[in-house]
């Protein structure tokens, strides 16, 4: 069971890293991509915690809808964060 624990630790580190990237980039499209990675890894975390229905909902909403809607919003506004 040592590898299960290692897998869990690595997954949580990946979630933290991608969440940090999602708020750090100036390019909003890169932020949306990092948020997509975050959402996928969160779905995998729900899966490993053995909640398959929550994992399906997270995959559907987080992966499918949220990133697509964010891309539509970026298309409607501006792609680069402006520096004051």
């Amino acid at each position, binding site marked *: 069971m040592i590898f299960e624990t290692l897998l869990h630790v690595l997954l949580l580190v990946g979630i933290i890293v991608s969440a940090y990237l999602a708020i750090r980039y100036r390019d909003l499209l890169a932020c949306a991509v990092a948020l997509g990675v975050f959402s996928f890894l969160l779905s995998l975390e729900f899966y490993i915690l053995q909640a398959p229905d929550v994992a399906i909902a997270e995959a559907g909403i987080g*992966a499918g809808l949220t990133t697509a809607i964010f891309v539509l919003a970026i298309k409607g506004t501006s792609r680069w964060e402006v520096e004051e």
Partner: protein
Amino acid sequence: MTSLWFLTAFILMLWIFLSILRLILGPTAPDRVVALDTVNTLVVALMIILAVAYNQIIYVDIAIVYALLSFVTTLYIAKYLEGGI
């Protein structure tokens, strides 16, 4: 025997980390999108391997739903970069 499947899942998780490294370093947006797509595919493989490790046949369904939906995201970003939508 179960430990073998978890070892495989752990190695795949290391590869996901290498993709996240490309997400961090990637100079242009297409690099990051390709990293996202690689993470998608690896997560689907990881879910099927974990379904074997947990010995639950219902868990494969999530991987199917996931593989279907992860395609949509990549398609949207690709269309945006192309200048479509």
